[in-house]
């Protein structure tokens, strides 16, 4: 199904992660790697050179036992909109190998165009972009399990979370086949959303008031999508990256961990 962006209201796909529900089990990470043919090494313990599109951080409140609290923060690509689509990474890529899609709000990565300068990685404050330092090699026989819908990446290029964009394409195809003009909320869900056993991840169109994501955080379009829900926040909000991944928590220290504040700031 081909949609003309001029004739439909632009979608803005986004993700809400309820940190009070997340148990840090890592199912989202596994589902993401499996779904997107993410290559891995024998030893993945060095997180500085292994690829995890969805990475779960463990954060503490810094207090000693028994006041210590732990929070797990899953971090996919934030699909930043920046100002008018000038997200930190998109605006710097010299070869237009990463692009901001105004019709979906998804930041894409064109692997065959990327020539591996890594400027986008330098620009991303979330460390959501990964470089293929090695050729992708899967254990014998595992090639059979690769998803045919996602192209594996070659050595020397950058890759990142795509909000499972191939699922969006499949959903559109299915809708066309079934004679529908548009896709429903449930038609397009990311692998991590579906894999989360705690139901901590919600995915949908932030522009659509009928979608859960919109109702959960109430993004304010007048303020670059800043959430009206007082329990919602975005990582590094004050940098102006305008991300489309929101977090929910009732814990004040978790919210504060999401951004940098001066000592005298509330």
């Amino acid at each position, binding site marked *: 199904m081909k949609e003309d962006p001029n004739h439909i209201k632009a979608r803005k796909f986004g993700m809400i992660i309820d940190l009070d529900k997340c148990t840090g089990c890592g199912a989202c990470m596994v589902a993401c790697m499996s779904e997107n043919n993410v290559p891995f090494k024998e030893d993945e313990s*060095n997180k*500085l*050179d292994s690829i995890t599109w969805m990475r779960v*951080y463990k*954060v503490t409140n810094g207090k000693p036992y028994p006041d210590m609290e732990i929070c797990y*923060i899953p971090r996919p690509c934030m699909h930043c909109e*920046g100002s008018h689509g*000038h997200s*930190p990474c998109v*605006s*710097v*890529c*010299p*070869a*237009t*190998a990463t692009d901001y899609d105004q019709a979906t709000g998804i930041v894409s990565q064109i692997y065959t*165009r*990327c*020539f*591996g*300068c*890594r*400027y986008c*990685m*330098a*620009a*991303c*404050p*979330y*460390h959501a*972009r*990964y*470089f*293929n*330092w*090695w*050729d992708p090699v899967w254990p014998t026989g595992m090639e059979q399990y690769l998803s045919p819908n996602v192209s594996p990446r*070659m*050595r*020397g*290029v*950058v890759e990142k979370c795509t909000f499972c964009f191939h699922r969006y394409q499949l959903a559109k195809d299915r809708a066309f086949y079934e004679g529908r003009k548009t896709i429903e909320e449930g038609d397009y869900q990311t692998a991590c959303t579906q894999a989360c056993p705690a139901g901590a991840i919600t995915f949908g169109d932030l522009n659509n008031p009928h979608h859960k994501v919109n109702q959960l955080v109430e993004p304010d379009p007048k303020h670059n999508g800043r959430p009206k829900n007082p329990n919602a926040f975005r*990582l*590094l909000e*004050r*940098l*102006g*990256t305008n991300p489309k991944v929101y977090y929910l928590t009732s814990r004040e220290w978790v919210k*504060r*961990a*999401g*951004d*940098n*504040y*001066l000592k005298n*700031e509330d």
Partner: protein
Amino acid sequence: MDSALIPQGVKRCPTWQFLLWLGIVGVVLLWGVYAMVLCWIKGLNQTNMNDAYGFALWIWADLAVIALGGGAFFTGFLRYLVGKDELKNIINYAVLIGFICYSSALLLLAIDVGQPLRSWHIFWHANIHSMLTEVAFCLSCYFMVLTIEYVPLILENRQLDKIPFFHHLGHNMHEIMAIFAATGAFLSFFHQGSLGGVAGVLFGRPFAYREGFLVWPWTFFLFTWSAAACGPCFTLLVTKITETITKKKLVKPNVVDLLGKISGWMLGTYIVAKIIDTWYWALVTVPSKGFTLTDFYSNNALYGIWILVMEILICGVAPAIILIIGPLRRNSALFMTAIILAVIGVCINRWVMVLQVMAMPVLTFENWVLYYPSWQEVATTVLPVVYGIILIMISYRYLPVFPQEQELNPVEK
């Protein structure tokens, strides 16, 4: 053996000595070439770069050599456009050093990218919003300009000059060199600036981010300014090193003094602008992102406030004062100290704008990440240095690089 190729009226070391040194430097060159081939064949896993350090030693070296090569465009600008005629006695060497620096930068970039065979994508799929696109276009064009400026010097070789076509070609190229000098100055303004913009536009990295004028962050202008100030210092430093090695005076003191004085004023004005920029950044930009200045210089093993003091005061203010004040500038020890400090200063500036940007955590739950280069990175960074030494050795031996050499070192017949 090669006396027919050596310019008339000057003395050069015996051929065996020349070849011996060429061989010694050549071994280091081969080491660098081996590391380069390893990176191309096996990929960037040969380096110690990682996902936190997408930019590392090579990008620093790239920015540093381009800043140091700035002596070519600025000396050319002064000689051909401002009309400082004395500088004709050092312009050849400035061009040669610039040529070495820029070819080195291009080589380093070719090693640094993950898919070198796709480098043309930067031109074909150019993103006009990217500072790196501007760098690529201006850098490539300016390298062509430098080649055009270097060619007439090659054509002045004794044997080549005997061929009428080359003789006339060289002569005619000299005649229109002002056009290329102007083109070079124009291109350099933009690529030096856009290299500054590379860091300055990173609004996701508060350590690098700067506000600015229209689409250009202040680092755009500061990089051009510092290259114009410190590039000539590097030209002077290499000239002094060459004089020490050859045990000859190659450029008259008035030429050195003039270029040193102009560099001093450029450095002095630059460092005032840099202090204002740092002041505004520390008091306005950084707090608006939730940081304090001390956040950038604490909780890690390397980047203390010392690096800011070193860059601005010791390697900025101090050499500027020495080079501006005549009696201090004319003291040879102080002069050498000043040009060395200026060169170190601009290298530190490029270092922090690349490496410290990467090291500094932005997410509250991440930590500083420090990095040390692999031997392959070191060898490939040494490669342009030895390549430069070899090109200087060959050029000095066979080309009339220094017009005043004959007069300053009369050969007894």
